[in-house]
């Protein structure tokens, strides 16, 4: 199918590179590997597991809400479930799943051999895992966070929440921000240092632009969450007064800090997914993306504007009109870059020759859901109308159109698209179509009626509702639809497990894709590229056939770098090779550092200060051990 030959290395070179790059099998290899592909797959599997857990929580809630005045759940159980559903989906699924794709794909699509900081990458995953374990261990003692993912003070203070529930929340999220922050630093450094020579910034895939923008947003947004959670923990554990209005604190401080973080976070969990779509749609429309520069700029603009809209979560808190008007305008303006992206996709489809494979079906469905979620967002940016719909099921509908539409649908599309690269086998097309239509119909059936429930006055976060308010039918439909959606997700899982054994062999480039990840075998070897490629355009594997003027990429020739784990370092913007980077060996330190953090945080949680100190000392020892040079330090070669 593809006319550009994949880069198949000579057997001797292959053996030599494998010896250098491959992680040894066995327990040591499992815990010590720094291979971005292994870490990426772990991220994907773990985040997907959390999607299933969050989905299970939702399924129980939908059963409770199917009819009025039901008693399947106690109010306390419901409140823990809806809080953990939000925390799970937003923190443990939506962002990590995209980190998973980026981890796996970035070095391949950028033409490199690993991330800039492979050990930090391993650490990032382990901390994500332990923070998930930490948060979920709260269920073991029946004290899961129960104040919503937004955790408004003062209801989270020890007066109104005496259990450990919100300590799990505050500490669990602080732990998770460590993982996310080092991940962001890693992506940014990788982008600016570890690309194929010639891949100047105007040749980056949009998916890379998405993750890059997201990573910068994380660096500026996450500290607001950290500060808020530290204050919450100090208020609860040490009797401080940050959110206590009677002693000079103020509950609105929490809301400001939380939403300064929270709104950029919404863009953080959609921009890489939108980027993925911007690369996937052209592949299936058999033409380059229309308006590459517009879409790249729109991505960055959205990331920046995302910091100027947080108050639209607070329109009913009695802020002065001057302030709400500004944030209302900003919240409307931010939809323009999204409109740019939507019309770039539409134009690409219109001027292309689309092939109805499963990834494209999910992409087309994504565009529709994105628009519904987008316009319902604009509707809520209108302050007086927001006073009515805020904190109703209208918002529940809106946010699920945004998060499921712009995250889950692209993620499933991404699996159909890239899983063959990871496993070497294609998913089944027929089952794929069933999968798409079940999810698409189920989702709309489940979530569209929630708009109506909201307009009928049904508030969010209620464990039950009385009969006779006109909410019964829409809720029953929502429950049926959401179960259909869940069946769709199960069909996807069946397809994945089926394909692992029986799937058609994919070959290096099953979709005839344009970018570098399709130039290597499926699954790629541990070293990614035997000969490090040079890039001459945005579409290295299409450029021969597009036959456009300009330089040509070189896929089948380049430096092999066989003196050890080595890859090329480039200049930040125009990607000129300027050094050979020695990459680290596998290491157990990241794993044990993450474990030490877990010990520390359990100490902080329970007030077992001795345990916290032991953990802290271990953290110090592991960090110094990690950074201590393993081999005698040599002079840099000239």
């Amino acid at each position, binding site marked *: 199918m593809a006319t550009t030959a994949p880069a198949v290395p000579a057997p001797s070179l292959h053996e030599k590179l494998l010896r250098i790059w491959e992680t040894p099998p066995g327990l040591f290899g499992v815990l010590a590997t720094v291979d971005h592909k292994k870490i990426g797959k772990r991220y994907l599997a773990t985040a997907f597991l959390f999607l299933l857990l969050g989905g299970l929580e939702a399924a129980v809630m939908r059963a409770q809400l199917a009819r009025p005045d039901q008693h399947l759940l106690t109010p306390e159980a419901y409140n823990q479930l809806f809080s953990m559903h939000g925390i799970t989906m937003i923190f443990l699924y939506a962002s990590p799943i995209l980190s998973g794709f980026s981890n796996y794909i970035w070095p391949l699509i950028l033409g490199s051999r690993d991330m800039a900081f492979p050990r930090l990458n391993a650490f990032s995953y382990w901390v994500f895992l332990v923070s998930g374990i930490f948060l979920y261990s709260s269920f073991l003692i029946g004290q899961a966070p129960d104040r919503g993912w937004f955790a408004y003070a003062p209801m989270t203070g020890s007066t109104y929440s005496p259990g450990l529930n919100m300590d799990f929340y505050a500490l669990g999220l602080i732990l998770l921000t460590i993982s996310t922050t080092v991940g962001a630093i890693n992506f940014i450094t990788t982008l600016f240092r570890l690309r194929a020579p010639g891949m100047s910034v105007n040749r980056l895939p949009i998916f890379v632009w998405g993750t890059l923008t997201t990573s910068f947003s994380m660096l500026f947004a996450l500290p607001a969450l950290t500060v808020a959670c530290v204050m919450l923990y100090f208020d609860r554990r040490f009797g401080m007064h940050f959110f206590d209005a009677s002693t000079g604190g103020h509950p609105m401080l929490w809301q400001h800090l939380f939403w300064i973080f929270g709104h950029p976070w919404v863009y953080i969990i959609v921009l890489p997914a939108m980027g993925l779509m911007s690369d996937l749609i052209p592949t299936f429309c058999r033409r380059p993306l229309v308006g590459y520069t517009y879409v790249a700029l729109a991505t960055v603009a959205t990331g920046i504007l995302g910091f100027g809209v947080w108050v639209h979560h607070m329109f009913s808190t*009695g802020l002065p009109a001057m302030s709400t008007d500004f944030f209302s305008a900003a919240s409307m303006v931010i939809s323009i870059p999204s409109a740019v992206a939507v019309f770039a996709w539409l134009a690409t489809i219109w001027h292309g020759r689309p092939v109805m494979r499963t990834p494209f079906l999910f992409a087309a469905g994504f565009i529709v859901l994105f628009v519904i979620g987008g316009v319902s967002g604009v509707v809520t940016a209108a302050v007086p109308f927001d006073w009515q719909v805020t904190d109703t099921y209208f918002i529940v509908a809106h946010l699920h159109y945004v998060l499921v539409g712009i995250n889950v649908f692209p993620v499933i599309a991404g699996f159909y698209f890239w899983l063959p690269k990871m496993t070497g086998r294609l998913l089944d097309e027929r089952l794929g179509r069933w999968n798409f239509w079940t999810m698409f119909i189920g989702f709309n059936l489940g979530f569209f009626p929630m708009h109506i429930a909201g307009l009928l006055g049904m508030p969010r976060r209620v464990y039950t509702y009385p009969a006779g308010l006109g909410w019964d039918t829409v809720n029953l439909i929502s429950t049926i639809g959401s179960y259909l959606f869940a069946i769709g997700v199960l069909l996807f899982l069946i397809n994945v497990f089926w394909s692992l054994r029986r799937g058609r062999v994919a070959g290096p480039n099953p979709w005839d894709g344009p970018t570098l990840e399709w130039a290597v075998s499926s699954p790629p070897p541990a070293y990614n590229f035997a000969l490090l490629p040079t890039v001459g355009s945005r579409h290295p594997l299409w450029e021969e056939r597009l036959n456009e003027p300009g330089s040509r990429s070189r896929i089948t020739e380049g430096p092999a770098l066989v003196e050890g784990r080595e890859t090329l370092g480039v200049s930040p913007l125009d990607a000129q090779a300027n050094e050979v980077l020695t990459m680290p060996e596998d290491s157990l330190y990241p794993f044990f550092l993450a474990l030490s953090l877990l010990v520390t945080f359990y100490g902080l949680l329970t007030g077992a200060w001795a345990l916290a100190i032991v953990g802290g000392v271990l953290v110090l020892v592991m960090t110094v051990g990690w950074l201590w040079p393993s081999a005698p330090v040599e002079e840099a070669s000239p």
Partner: protein
Amino acid sequence: MLGFHGVAGSREAVLGWVLLVVAMIVTLVVSLLVLAGAWRGRTSELLPPQRTGGGLRWIVIGGIIVPTVILAAVFVLTMVTQAAVAAPSAPPTVTVQITGHQWWWEVHYLDRSPSRIAVTANEIHIPVGQPVRFELVTGDVIHSFWIPELGGKTDLIPGQRNVMWLEADSAGVYRGQCGEYCGTQHAKMAMSVIAEPAGKFNQWLVLQRQPAAAPPDPDVAAGERVFASSACALCHTVRGTLAGGRLGPDLTHLAGRRTIAAGMLPNTRGNLAGWIANPQALKPGSLMPVVPLRATELLAVVAFLQSLE
């Protein structure tokens, strides 16, 4: 449906419906373009990639110009609506202070002379066709005051006093519910606004200012004694009796209310008895404890409460 019985609410609802119609048109147009585009050039094979010209016009027109025009219009409409609902047409004559509690609403009809302040709970009477000023405070966590048919929400936040107004344009009973998640029984923190002609409203308000009328009946008198000497009086006030607790709703004119337990149950003899006998069964987590009463005591307390017109 939201809005249409309140002066502010109607404006908000009109804005909302205009926005929703625009939103549906945009969704429809884009969905049709996806379908048409996918149908138009569809192929079954992955053809060789090819760059056909054009397409940028889509972005400039569909992605920039059209949305900017729509958004500008929407923003103007938003600002006009916001200005229109910012203040009532006439200065309100009635000011109601709402205090949110986990999980009920304390209602004070403010007056310059303290003796004329009326206190009630969960049911707010207002004169129809007149704007009413609401001052919103909370006794514990954040709540949100919301009567969907009359207007939008305003939060009750510790450390600040928010102000809003409502005006009902037709008489009726309008259900409201806490709009901000406030803990275990957030779902059952309802209230109602009863909009009635000014004369009827004033009569009601005068009655609310009075202490409870002396119970003429021996059962009622027995109930009053039980109420005043048991845990009931630690939390509830019945003006004109010894009961002066401040933690729970003022019950001075309880019998005049339509519902009990913050809009949860109709105010009937059976419901009242059931609620007092075991509030935790009906509203788990409620701050009202189970007060151990013998059956005769329970019936006497119910009789007493039912006498509080």
